[in-house]
């Protein structure tokens, strides 16, 4: 594996990419997944370094190169990331082609949410699991039954993986005599293969589950211990329980140490603290920034099955990326006219994909650029250029096709392809990589050139591959409409509509409504 092809003219000039760096992968997060990813990558001829955080446990025989330290800073683009790591002894600077965030989840205890003090007989679920795993024993009670109370999905919803943990803890407990486990819960998360059957098994073994719709159980503590008071949900009776042990599940989330990577992606405030927007546009482990991959908790995935899939998906993603060639024709990638650029850095702040860097002047990485055109429109100097897609036949004959339908190639274009020709007879379709490439000025130009109506069809909020491309487009349509209004034109001749590839009817509806509004012009 020789790494990716890096023949971009400016990459050669500006970044002076090192071939050996491009096939190196930095994996953040030890745990078992980090090491496993390193192994799988190794089989595909990628060398990895696994970064352990200073407090993370070190495996005995790691099958990968391991560094223990903290990331101070990351910069650069796919194939050429510069990473500054602070270890216990010094600060290192290294180059990597790809970065994989595979840290274990951050666990937030719920014990405080119950307004009780953490004491000896109170555990977080993950602690209790470790306690039993390491041979920890339950308190002996010769005279009576021991009662153990689990709290799950209360005070914040819980993940399927936590129910799996709870069930595996119950598996261990079941061997004990005269022990009665109770589970206080809201919704049991059984959406994983075999989990509902295991839940049934534990009911059969005698575990009692209380499901609360409202009125969570209340825990009172005094010197004698804790008393749980609640209204039994099925009986409606007041009940109390003095448990010997209480175990609380935790809130899972991404680790805090993703910050240096989030800083690399200007659109990240929209989806932080995760590395991946929750959008079906981002399948598998891809993030908006090329070359950065999010595994498991860093993209909001916690269950073991999906985590295992993520381990493999990283390799697929890196292989795909290493085969990708930059579009040098210029058709699908933005480029900066350095003569016009005044270094305001608007483009840098706004590129949703983190594709723009600054080394003495703004440069666009052709592999990272998704051609959304957000920068093109937002550049106050008009210094950035990107051309519309050329693969949709459209006439420039404004007279015969006086309605302009501006569509995003990822949604509106597919929807438009499903619309009957009759409805589109007087509609010119203009396809863009992203509605984010629509500017108020261009909309006004259509009217200047004789358009009777213009519809901009962008993705629904949350479904835009450029995170906020369609939101910007909608806002710009608003500006343009305002200007039209002030200029004495009917602003209703211009409209933004949200669309998905499978909602041609919303486009048809928008066209029909527009036609009825403008028929007298």
């Amino acid at each position, binding site marked *: 594996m020789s790494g990716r092809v890096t023949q971009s003219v400016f990459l050669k000039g500006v970044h002076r990419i090192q071939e050996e760096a491009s096939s190196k992968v930095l994996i953040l997060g030890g745990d078992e997944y980090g090491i496993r990813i390193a192994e799988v990558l190794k089989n595909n001829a990628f060398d990895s370094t696994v970064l352990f955080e200073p407090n993370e446990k070190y495996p005995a025989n790691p099958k990968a190169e391991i560094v223990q330290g903290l990331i101070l800073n990351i910069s650069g683009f796919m194939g050429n990331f510069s990473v500054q790591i602070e270890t216990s002894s010094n600060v290192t600077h290294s180059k990597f082609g790809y970065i994989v965030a595979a840290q274990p989840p951050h666990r937030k205890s719920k014990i405080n949410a119950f307004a009780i003090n953490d004491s000896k007989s109170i555990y977080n679920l993950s602690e209790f699991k470790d306690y039993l795993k390491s041979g920890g024993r339950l308190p002996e009670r010769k005279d009576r039954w021991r009662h153990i109370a689990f709290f799950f999905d209360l005070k914040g919803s819980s993940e399927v993986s936590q129910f799996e943990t709870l069930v595996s803890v119950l598996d261990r407990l079941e061997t004990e005599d005269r022990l009665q486990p109770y589970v206080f819960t809201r*919704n049991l998360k059984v*959406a994983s293969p075999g989990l509902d059957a295991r839940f049934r098994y534990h009911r059969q073994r005698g575990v009692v589950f209380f499901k609360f719709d409202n009125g969570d159980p209340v825990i009172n503590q005094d010197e004698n211990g804790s008393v749980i008071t609640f209204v039994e949900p099925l009986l409606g009776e007041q009940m109390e329980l003095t448990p010997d042990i209480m175990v609380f599940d935790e809130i899972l989330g991404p680790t805090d140490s993703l910050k240096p990577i989030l800083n690399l992606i200007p659109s990240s405030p929209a989806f932080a603290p995760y590395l991946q927007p929750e959008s*079906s546009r981002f*399948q598998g482990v891809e993030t908006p920034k090329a070359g950065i991959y999010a595994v498991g908790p860093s993209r909001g995935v916690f269950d073991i099955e999906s985590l295992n899939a993520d381990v493999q998906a990283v390799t697929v993603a890196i292989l795909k990326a290493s085969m990708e060639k930059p579009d040098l024709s210029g058709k699908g990638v933005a480029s900066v006219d350095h003569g016009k650029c005044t270094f305001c850095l608007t483009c840098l702040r706004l590129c949703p994909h983190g594709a723009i860097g600054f080394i003495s002047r703004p440069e666009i990485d052709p592999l990272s650029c998704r051609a959304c055109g957000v920068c093109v429109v937002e550049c106050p100097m008009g210094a950035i250029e990107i051309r519309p897609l050329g693969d949709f036949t459209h006439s420039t004959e404004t007279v015969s096709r006086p309605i302009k339908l501006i569509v995003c190639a990822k949604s509106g274009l597919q929807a438009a392809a499903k619309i009957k020709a009759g409805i589109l007879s007087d509609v010119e379709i203009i396809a863009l990589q992203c509605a984010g490439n629509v500017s108020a000025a261009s909309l006004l130009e259509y009217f200047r050139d004789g358009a009777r109506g213009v519809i901009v069809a962008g*993705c629904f909020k949350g479904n835009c591959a450029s995170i906020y491309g369609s939101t910007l487009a909608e806002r710009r349509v608003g500006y343009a409409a305002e200007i039209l209004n002030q200029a004495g034109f009917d602003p209703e001749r211009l409209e933004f509509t949200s669309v998905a590839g499978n909602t041609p009817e919303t486009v048809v509806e928008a066209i029909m409504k527009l036609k009825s509004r403008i028929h007298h012009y």
Partner: protein
Amino acid sequence: MKKETLIIGGGITGLSLAWELSCLGISSTIVEKAPFMGGHVSNFACKATQTCQKCGACQLEDYLSKVHKAENVDLMVSSTVDSLTQNGRDFKAMILQRKSMIVSDKCDDCGLCLKVCPVEGALFYPAFDSRLYISNEKCLNSIGVHCEICAQICPQGAVELQEKSREVETEVASIAICTGFSPYDPTQKLKFGYPRVPGVITSLELDSILRTGNFQSAAFGETPKSIAFIQCVGSRDPRSGTNYCSQICCGVSIRLARLIKNRYPDINLTIFYMDIQTFEREFDRTLDRAQSDINFIRAMPSEIHSDEDGFPRVVYHGGDETRQMALFDMVVLSVGIVPRDPDLPGSFPGLWKNRDGFIGSDDNGVDAGHPGIFVAGAAQGPKSISACVSHAILAASQIKRYLDRTMRGE
């Protein structure tokens, strides 16, 4: 020409798998028995309200357009794998294709063919398309009865009937079973009145209605004023032989409910449930929002029957002292995912079924137990659209690994 992978099933899993393989430089042929690609997802509505609800249904369009453009993917609709034999390490597949079709460029939607066709459902408009299709399974010609009534009456000459199947023999190095799932058949639950009681429909039917547009256009006459969803119909139900959670139904129903609430704010919505399963990242907030305008009742109804005026009445016990009998205009049975027999022709040692009846896979999740045969998507177990795509990516990685190894002669 030899393809590297034969993908059986052209649903979201098969298509995304083909795309991932294509990106990795691996060629594939997708065999789909329906006259169009897309499987179940092609009937699913976009559930976006003002914002995307992340149902993933539009992913299909995305993958369809990508796969159509990909050079190393062959798409075969109206096709079935007739025989499959081992040939050394490779497989030999005989594919039967009967591509009777209505040429959409010529068709002017006059409807004459629909009127004269002797078999109901043999000519049909799918929910997602304004074009007319010929069902391979129902068209008389497919059972050997010569019939060309539609072709003769069509004034446009748009009907192209293919009476005999075309046989295509291909050799492939690997096989991916992407045959998906079957929805649970709610007629087994007689208590729920489907399809006896008017107004009782399945979640798939509702999805399809919303995809087409609205309730009126779906021959419902009127827009309902109240709709109830019954969760876990055929899921978590050892009595029906399904001792597992179907995983997707909570997400589907809550998204459908929110979509309906968005389009028709006056419709009253109720969801009967056992446990609400997490289905997205901001689940707590989604659930809170949903609970603010949807009535959630933790109860499994005992019965749905028709009241005097023909509306569905749901009998349940919500936790009060007495049982409730609630009238709705429409009751949606949120049917679970049950295994579909992939009908793999030929026998391959090692293939197995898991505890729940889906195609078994080993620890890596996609190896079906016989060298070179893989399983992906809902054929392996209940999965959402995005989980199907993730599984397809996983399958792509394992297929690549397998092909790399066999090529090296390991």
